[in-house]
């Protein structure tokens, strides 16, 4: 046991010497390992990044909210079927709440209408087109994020009375007002003037598709007065009491909304119930694709790297045949020689792994500083995985030549020219 440790230390010393003595050769051989490790960490980080980005986006939608809408979020089969469905009306929300109230032990808490449309917003000479305008009530605070950086969200009288006030996203505020304080100013949505009473905190974008920072929220009554409530963006958001019972809640909501719509049992649903969970399944193929591509690149690079290391170890064994003979004459056992060459191969791979990690880390920091909103994460787990992969590559590529070295006949090794 003690001898094993001494032999190990001696092998490490020799390995370090060998790598240092053959710097160029060592570097060339670890190139494959470096590329492999960079690829595997990039892939891991990208997948994790998508996950965290997704989770962050999902929390914007709320994981205990169901959306009653005309269109399903996941790609559906029949465009015309959805197209011809009746609009989701504001009044449906009130009727839905009545149904919920009359259901004993309902799993649903509250339905909040949130019709929306795209409009041009202007202030002074500045203009933003295609801004997401949403009409809703103060109840929206129960289901969505309404934290304000300055000012406040809609209150009850405002949402009922239909005063022309608005709460704007941070990007809208910055683009229209620049450095000025938007509070109290009046902007125009379409051709209606709205006074700004609040600016949202930064919320971020949903999967980079839809930015919550570029929306404008106005009272439902005001929205109903000036905008078409039945647009395809219209939705009724329903808060669920217990997020662990989303499936049951969705079924209850389906029944409740069928009652609102007065559908006969044989009639199919003419609405869609959406939830954030639906996105998760659409994301899986993307993640799987990334993983396959990443694993393919990693595998290829590591394979090439392993072949290179195997070759170099073979060369090293041949060059040092006499040394092997000498060591055997001095009492090195087979496993001592085996271990020595394995350690050398593993050390080369670990070096490659370490360099790969440093490179990958540099890349991440660069990307993170260039695109701060891009959700990437460098995890200790990835470091661990990368090092394990390096060690395994070293062992698998070094084993055959090391075995060959350990089985050399000492006499022949000593005679080798």
């Amino acid at each position, binding site marked *: 046991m*003690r*001898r094993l440790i*001494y*032999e190990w230390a*001696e092998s490490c010393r*020799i390995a370090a*010497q060998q790598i240092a*003595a053959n710097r160029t050769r060592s570097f060339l051989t670890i190139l494959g390992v470096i590329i492999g490790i960079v690829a595997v960490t990039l892939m891991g980080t990208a997948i994790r990044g998508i996950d965290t980005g997704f989770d962050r986006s999902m929390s914007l939608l709320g994981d205990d909210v169901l959306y009653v809408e005309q269109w399903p979020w996941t790609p559906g089969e029949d465009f015309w079927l959805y197209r011809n469905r009746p609009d989701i009306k504001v009044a449906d929300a009130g009727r839905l709440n009545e149904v919920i109230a009359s259901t004993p032990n309902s799993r649903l808490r509250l339905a909040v209408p949130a019709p929306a449309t795209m409009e041009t917003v202007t202030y002074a000479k500045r203009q933003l087109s295609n801004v997401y305008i949403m009409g809703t009530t103060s109840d929206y605070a129960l289901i969505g994020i309404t934290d304000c950086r300055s000012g406040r969200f809609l209150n009850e009288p405002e949402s009922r009375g239909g005063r022309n006030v608005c709460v704007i996203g941070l990007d809208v505020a910055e683009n229209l007002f620049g450095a000025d304080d938007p509070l109290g100013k009046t902007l125009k949505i379409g051709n209606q003037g709205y006074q700004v009473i609040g600016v949202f905190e930064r919320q971020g974008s949903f999967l980079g598709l839809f930015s919550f920072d570029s929306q404008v929220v106005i009272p439902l009554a005001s929205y109903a007065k000036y905008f078409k409530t039945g647009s395809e963006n219209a939705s009724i958001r329903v808060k669920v009491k217990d997020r662990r019972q989303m499936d049951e809640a969705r079924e209850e909501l389906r029944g409740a909304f069928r009652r609102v719509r007065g559908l006969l049992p044989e009639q199919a649903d003419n609405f869609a119930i959406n939830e954030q969970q639906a996105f998760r399944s659409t994301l899986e193929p993307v993640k799987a694709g990334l993983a396959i591509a990443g694993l393919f690149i990693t595998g290829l690079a590591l394979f090439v790297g392993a072949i290179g290391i195997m070759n170099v170890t073979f060369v090293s064994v041949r060059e040092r045949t*006499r*040394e092997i*003979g*000498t*060591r*055997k*004459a*001095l*009492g*090195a*056992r*087979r*496993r*001592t020689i085996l271990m020595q060459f394995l350690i050398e191969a593993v050390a080369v791979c670990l070096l490659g792994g370490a360099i790969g990690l440093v490179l990958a880390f540099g890349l991440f920091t660069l990307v993170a500083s260039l695109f701060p909103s891009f959700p990437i994460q460098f995890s200790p787990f990835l470091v661990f995985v990368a090092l394990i992969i390096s060690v395994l590559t070293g062992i698998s590529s070094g084993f055959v030549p090391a075995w060959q070295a350990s089985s050399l*006949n*000492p*006499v022949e090794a*000593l005679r080798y020219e």
Partner: protein
Amino acid sequence: MPNEIAMEPRLARSGADVVIRIEGITKRYVMGATTVHALKGIDLLIRRNEYLAVMGPSGSGKSTLMNMLGCLDTPTSGRYEFNGQDVANMEDDELAAIRNREIGFVFQTFNLLPRSTSLQNVELPLVYAGVPASERRHRAAEALFRVGLMDRLHHKPNELSGGQRQRVAIARALVNRPSIILADEPTGNLDSQTGREIMTLFENLHEGGNTIIVVTHEEAIARHARRVVRLRDGKIESDHATAHL
């Protein structure tokens, strides 16, 4: 073997003294269709603190015999007892352990590790013997002191002369206090002056109690030994004491 029975009592009496005892050792190399009989039945008895020279023409089997004696190779047939242990049929790793503990090798080509210092080279057998680092350094330095290289502990082989390299190799052979030191043409790569110095060193080691076997071509070198075994064509031609000076 006619004299075997007669030999037995004598061996039993002095058995504790015998380091090497080989009987009827043969070694055959099969190379495709041809077979080389490198050794054709060798008997040899070597006692503690003997100083033996092996001589013979090139190809007579001297190195083959030394490899056998050094447990680097196993005989095709015959018996080999080293310190009373049967080593003719041992496994690789058992032989490695014997070599490590009992045998010190000195090669014609020195065979030092090129990137390691004298001290590290001499420590190597102790590493394989599982000696702790501090004791290793101590014993390696002591061995280097005995060969007169106390001031070259941290030199690498390419910073040493040929004679100094061979001294490092001898220190390495000594360091684990082996039962026997085997030297195959230790002066073959040295000029005659340096060769004489190395032989003086062997002389001193012999006087210090070591058992030494030297293979050589040169009568002048062989004269340092107390006993000369001459091989010819894989057999012992003669085996007698020298007129030691």
